Every structure is written in structure tokens, then in C-alpha cells.
């Protein structure tokens, strides 16, 4: 099941050229671009791991793409997303975030039912991927 999180997630995957245009847009606005990765695709998992530091003071997307390619080399089997942080007063938060890399095979989620007293049920979703330990979830060794 294809994960849809952040901007553009209902579009086909962005090409590198499209990614760099988006990144350039963010840089032109003065936002700092971050690269984050995870192998826990649950939608409530908001704490992805960062690849390096937020990239402040860049002027061209080529620098970000360089980092992204390096991140893909190491974590190409996981989800990688880019987010752009606006540090101006009043915003001080993420303005845009989109997935730039995803595992080849996304197994999706199952619905778990917990039976409680009096026939009531509690539901939760669980990704099939997280059944395996971290790092091995998407065919990592």
C-alpha cells in the first residue's frame, strides 16, 4: 500500500528535477531544508530521523540534492522526506514536507482489534513492516 503523507503524495513520485525545483522554491523563500528518514511508516510517527543538520544559508538546490543522494546511498530502502523550516517570527515551523524516496515494496497496514469487556472493541492500525526489527524492515541486511 502506497504511503501518502505530506505534499504531492497523491502524485506519482517526484523526479530529481521536480524535487530540486521544490527545494529551490523553499530556498528562495528563505526556508531551511531538512532531510529525514524512517522505516516506520505509521502516520502518527512524526519523529523521523534527521540526515545531518537542517541546511540553513544555502542558495542553490544542488547542495540539497547532493545530500539527498548521499542519504539515498545509505538509506535508499527506507522512506526519506524533505521538509522546509520557516524560521521567521510567528511561523517558526515546517512549511512544506514531501516524500522523496520510498521502499520498493510497501506492505501496508493491518487493522488490529482488541476485545474488551462487554463485547466492546478497540481498533489500532499496525504496519506489517514493523513486525521486523528496525533496519531490517525493507530488505535491509
Amino acid at each position, binding site marked *: 500500500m502506497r504511503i501518502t503523507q505530506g505534499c504531492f503524495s497523491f502524485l506519482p513520485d517526484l523526479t530529481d528535477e521536480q524535487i530540486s525545483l521544490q527545494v529551490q522554491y523553499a530556498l528562495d523563500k528563505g526556508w531551511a531544508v531538512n532531510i529525514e528518514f524512517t522505516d516506520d511508516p505509521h502516520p502518527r510517527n512524526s519523529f523521523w530521523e534527521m540526515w*545531518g543538520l537542517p*541546511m540553513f*544559508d*544555502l*542558495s*542553490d*538546490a*544542488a*547542495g*540539497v540534492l*547532493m*545530500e539527498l543522494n548521499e542519504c539515498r546511498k545509505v538509506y535508499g530502502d527506507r522512506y526519506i522526506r524533505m521538509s522546509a523550516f520557516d524560521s521567521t517570527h510567528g511561523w517558526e515551523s515546517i512549511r512544506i514536507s514531501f516524500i522523496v524516496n520510498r521502499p520498493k515494496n510497501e506492505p501496508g497496514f493491518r487493522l488490529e482489534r482488541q476485545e474488551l469487556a462487554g463485547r466492546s472493541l478497540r481498533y489500532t492500525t499496525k504496519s506489517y513492516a514493523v513486525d521486523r526489527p528496525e533496519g531490517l524492515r525493507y530488505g535491509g541486511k
Partner: protein
Amino acid sequence: MNSQSDASANPQDVSETLPIEQVDLRREFNEVGIGEVLDQLDRELVGLKPVKTRIREIASLLLIERIRKRMGLAAEVPTLHMSFTGNPGTGKTTVALRIASILHKLGFVRRGQVISVTRDELVGQYIGHTAPKTKEILKKAMGGVLFIDEAYYLHRPDNERDYGQEAIEMLLQVMESQREDLVVILAGYGDQMDKFFASNPGFRSRIAHHIDFPDYSDDELLAIAELMLRDMNYRFRSDARDAFVRYIHLRKMQPLFANARSIRNALDRMRLRQANRLVADLDRVLTADDIMSLEASDVLASRVFAKTAIT
């Protein structure tokens, strides 16, 4: 717009397969606006003949390259990495800034910003510190020009475990693989740069343009001084100019002469003396002319004339 593009749709299709055959060179030249940058270079930089010639050549090549691309005559992106060698104060940094704007106008760098760094900003202090630092700088410079001043400090021949080597390797890799994203300009004093290139042959061969900055002649130094004064809204009285000509002659024979930089320092000290002279007589009514003029006494008070110490 629609009706126009319909009309021109056919020729456009043809130009896709059959690239343009003819180019109006003058129009192309004016369009890019490179003429004014070169003129500005001529106007604002005194002397530096070989440098200007080389920059003109590079600019022409880039212009032709642009046209060739439009004609569909595919060629590799020309290597634009440069090395500037020359004595202190010969204008290496100034020219690097100009080069960036030329390259930007011609569209060979996308942003045109210049990141000026020295060894400190590239090389770390402990193991594993250098790579992130260098990468950080490279990322900032992407799409523009990376200017490495005193580049020979990157390599310390006396210490083979020096972290500078790591920075050099990263630089070389990016200079090769991301030629269209980044232009690297190295600058440094002539003999030290020669040694630097001798110990890093990879660097030498990756840099297409080695430009040597000559020392200025006395006349050129005087012209520079007057240009600087004009920018600061000062001027020489005629006897002061004569005194300054002598000053240049004497100063050049002393050690640690740094061309235009020494001239600028000398002018700054003259401004001090002039201010002091004006303040000494508080009862006077000053005119704008008094405040703008440097007199011979301001020049002659320099220690250079006393031949005692280095200024």
C-alpha cells in the same frame, strides 16, 4: 499569445530538429549584458593587462559556448575552475567577485553568489570534523563560486596526517563531478601556489585557467590611489600628488609592500593626519574644499620619508 504561438509553431518544430543556423553575434552580446561588466572591469580596475585579456577570452568562449548550445553543437560544459596567483594586494579577490558576476550573466552559474573561505572554514580540528565542514561550505557555494583564499594552506607538507588532505580530496571530487553546479577559484601567492600544485597534481590538471596577477607599476599605483580617494570623496592638492608619487617610489623599495593594499593603508593614515591637522586649528571656518583636500604635509609626515621604519 495563443494566436502568436500558433503562427510560430511550425518554425519552432523545425528548430527542434534543425537547430538555428545563424546568430547575430552583436545582439547576443548585448543581450547577455556582458559588455558592461567587462567595461566596468576596465574602468574600475587599474592595470592588470594579462588578467583582463584572459577574462575577455573566457567571456568570449562562454558566449560562443552559449550560442553553440543553441545551435545544437553539443559540447561538454567547459571547465571553469581557476587559480589566481600573485603578490599581496594585486586584486585577486576583487577580480574573483567580478568573475562570479560575469559567469552569472552568461548563465554558467545559476545564482552568482561568491562564498569566500580560507583553510579555517574547510578544515576541522579533529578526526571526522573536516568532511562535514567542507561539505557545508560546498553546499553553500552550489550554484555559485567558491573562492578559496590562501589555498596553499590547505596542504601542510610537514604533517602528513594533516586534515587538509581530506578537504582537498572532497574538493577535487566535487570539482570533477559537479562541474555545472560549482566553480572553484583558488587564490594565493605565486611561489607557494606552485608548491601546492606540485604536491597536488590532481588540482593542477582540474583547473583550466591559471591566471597570474602582475605587480602594479608606480603610475598604476597612483591611479589606484586617486580612484580610491575619489570613492572616499577626497582629493590631492597638486603638491600632495607630487609628494605621493615620491611616497610610492620610496614605499615600493621597502619590505612588506602589498601593492594596492599598502596604498589603501597609506591613504587611511593620511586621512588621519588631515583630520588631526584640521582639528588642531579650532577657530578656523572650514569649507568643503578644505575637508576634501589632502595637502603635501599630510603625505610628507609619513615615516617612509624619514626612512626609519616600515609603515
